[in-house]
């Protein structure tokens, strides 16, 4: 008897609480920037593609839904010739973002990806690439890598000394 009254009181009290349910889709929930939603490819501060096609996201992907092919441009920069994510397979685990050595691949708090046609869930590079830096501003992989590319010669990266002269005889 007592428990019945207690339950009724609990329900009654909730009439005066703030609503937790929101009127989606008219109203949107706030998702944290770290939320694991739609995957994007970002660009470095200079506007170049961050992805260097190293294949680490593809290999770590537990459902193997990322396929890409690296290529090299005339400046020696590597980029993905194609980059394809099959979102009908993706489980949004975020391991690709963990594995990415250049902060190129990032998960975003966008979850509205439903499609009437399943083939539309296959995203190509032009669908994935954004024009900004995403969650990690300021990082430029080629500024820390030893590779020389157009506009950045050997010895010009962070923490590098100028190239040695092998014909130098000084001790």
């Amino acid at each position: 008897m007592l428990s019945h009254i207690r339950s009724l009181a609990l329900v009654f009290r909730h009439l005066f609480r703030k609503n937790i349910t929101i009127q989606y889709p008219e109203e949107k929930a706030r998702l944290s920037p770290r939320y694991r939603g739609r995957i994007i490819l970002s660009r470095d501060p200079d506007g170049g593609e961050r992805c260097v096609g190293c294949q680490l996201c593809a290999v770590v992907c537990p459902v193997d839904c990322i396929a890409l092919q690296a290529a090299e441009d005339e400046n020696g920069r590597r980029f993905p010739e194609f980059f394809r994510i099959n979102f009908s397979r993706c489980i949004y685990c975020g391991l690709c973002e963990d594995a990415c050595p250049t902060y190129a691949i990032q998960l975003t708090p966008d979850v509205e990806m439903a499609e009437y046609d399943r083939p539309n869930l296959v995203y190509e590079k032009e669908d994935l690439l954004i024009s900004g830096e995403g969650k990690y501003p300021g990082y430029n992989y080629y500024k820390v890598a030893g590779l020389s590319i157009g506009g950045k010669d050997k010895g010009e990266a962070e923490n590098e000394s100028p190239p040695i002269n092998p014909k130098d005889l000084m001790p």
Partner: protein
Amino acid sequence: MATITIDGKSYQADASQNLLQTALQLGFDLPYFCWHPAMGSVGACRQCAVRQFRDDDDTTGMIVMACMVPVSDGLRISIDDPEAKEFRKGVVEWLMTNHPHDCAVCDEGGECHLQDMTVMAGHSKRRYRFQKRTHRNQYLGPFINHEMNRCIQCYRCVRFYKDYAGGRDLDVFSSRNRVYFGRHEEGVLENPFSGNLVEVCPTGVFTDKPFKAQPTRKWDLSTAASICPHCSLGCNTIVGERYGKFRRVLNRYHHDLNGYFLCDRGRFGSAFVNSDKRSRQPQWRENGQTVSLDKQTITDLLATEILDGKKVIGIGSPRASMEANYALRTLVGEDAFFNGLSENDAAISKQIISIYQHTHIASLRDAAESDAVFVLGEDLTNTAPRLALALRQAVRNTPLEDADKLKIPRWHARAVADVIQHRHGPLHLASIAATQLDDIATSRHLAAPADLARIGFAIAHELDSDAPAVANLTSEQAAYAKQVAHDLRQAKRPLVVAGSSLGSVALVQAAGQITKALKQNEARISLIVAEANTLGVALLGDKSISSAIQEKADTIIVLENNIFRRSTDHLINRMLKSANCVITIDHLENATTQQAHASLPAATFTEASGTSINNEGRAQRSFQVVLASDPVQASWRWLRDLMVAANKQQTGAWETLDDVLASLVTEFPKLAKLSEVAPNSKWRQSSQKVARASRRSGGRTAILATVHEPKPPSDPDAPLSFTMEGNPASSSTALNNRYWSPGWNSVQALNQYQQEIGGPLRGGDPGICLFEKKRRQQRVVY
């Protein structure tokens, strides 16, 4: 054998080895960089540190480099010793102070010995806060990419390039932490074995440049065991594929053949399989017009040309597989089958087969172990490059005996080199022009092919007076014959090399005579033929192109052969013009396909499995790795389709490669072993096929850009699957398509696949020698 104690446990070990090799062989994960099983130890990298104890009572011991410690009875060491571990970790940490943050854009990543060793040694956090030294790179030609920042100064590259391969244009410059490995100025690397730097270098300083155009990780490559199609030696290779395209060739270890190294032609010569100029549609030419037809239409059309009553002749090919040649022979019949060799090549091949009945044939390993060599007429660097590399090792054998006398172990590379200095064992070259082996030759004799043969016979007479004498020798020639005969007689394991490149049967006969005249049990002969399956096609039929020219045929079928290379243009033109229908089956356009009425697109060695027979009569199977895009198919399948269309064979008689081989061995009992060369398509590893793709292969569900994946293709010809489904490894060495073991992602994982490091593969080396051989037991030559 010696008993040694490692971390308190005793093991049996070979006393002629060093401790590093022994530890690796026993399954310990001991990191190393500068040691290489084919090049021995130099103790340069300080990575393989272990603690050695004097005796049971010694608890302090001392840190030593395992690669410089000879195994001896009672040796006590500790690999797990905390100080030794700390030392190894420290060494990697030093190496990493200057190593660039490049792995993501480095082609070595994922198969990098430095990555493996860093993980193995336990270094993970960078403490060094100062600047990294940098280097400028050099242009080293179209094959090798140079990225000097990644160097860890192990000296393996120069030890291979200069000491092992005899190169002169790669060296080490400068001092202290500025040490630089490169050429004195930019330029193409001259040595024909420069491609091995890719596998020898433990990091990404030297990488495969053609591969770099479309970089692919090792784990993403689908691979299969293959045989190099570029010369008659039949070196074993691993061919890699990704996204339906051929990507690269790697060395596949074979103890008796290529060992650890390939030549550049083998490594970089296969890009043609991706060529835009490949014929990919059946074509029909009539009245100057060319039309592309589909598979069914062209086979039906051609069936009328090969019906009974028409005279059909078939011209085989020394570069097509045994199965393809046999299929052609079945279609046209024994009498109308010509082996597609030039008249000379056919005669020489016949001669070689008869010589092989009574002499010991040298494998590449035998060649490397011989102690006196006479090369009669061949320019080996061009006709059989890997043999030239083997001879570079052979000339070390005589001076190596001095090192043995001084009790210097053969793995002690620097000490051995100090003993050898610049001395070479006897290598006599008799040729028509200068060769790239001249720098190590004891003597060179330049003469015309006929004179070379006379000298050969004269040497045979010197060695054995029963052999016929040669009249009218000049005094110079006689003296030369005496000198060569003397050196061959003195040797324990003499080797005579000749071949078909000069088109002289007499030369090969002379080489056979010399070998016969040599009294040593270990006297061997190595005879070089022109192409990958020259001996094989010669075993299937002995009529050459010259006999074909004399035939009056209605239809000529030319299998994977540009016959303009086999005779004079005039005769070939006359033959092709006189026929009503010329059918060619080939993968690239050539002068013959341009004259054909019908050309059928054939699969290349990467797209079809097949068996071939190398210069020593060793039958080996090469497996398909790239899927042929319809209507491209294996030559034997085209020939089968024609036979079925013309009602010469029942539908379903030849469905798989096994069916063709079964017919072949029934018809040629002497070749019965061909079907045992590699596991057949029914073979299973623990009831599964062997996977071409690796377990780590990525992108499975995104490659096809569809959400409904079709059933993966199946391979009726081999016990291999095209996907990662199946067994990742096989117990059959003929199917070995990848070297990997836990913690060892680089090619150095090979150590785990050998019975003893540098020895035969576990489970025996693949391939079957068709001619009887006596094996001699001797350790690998460093």
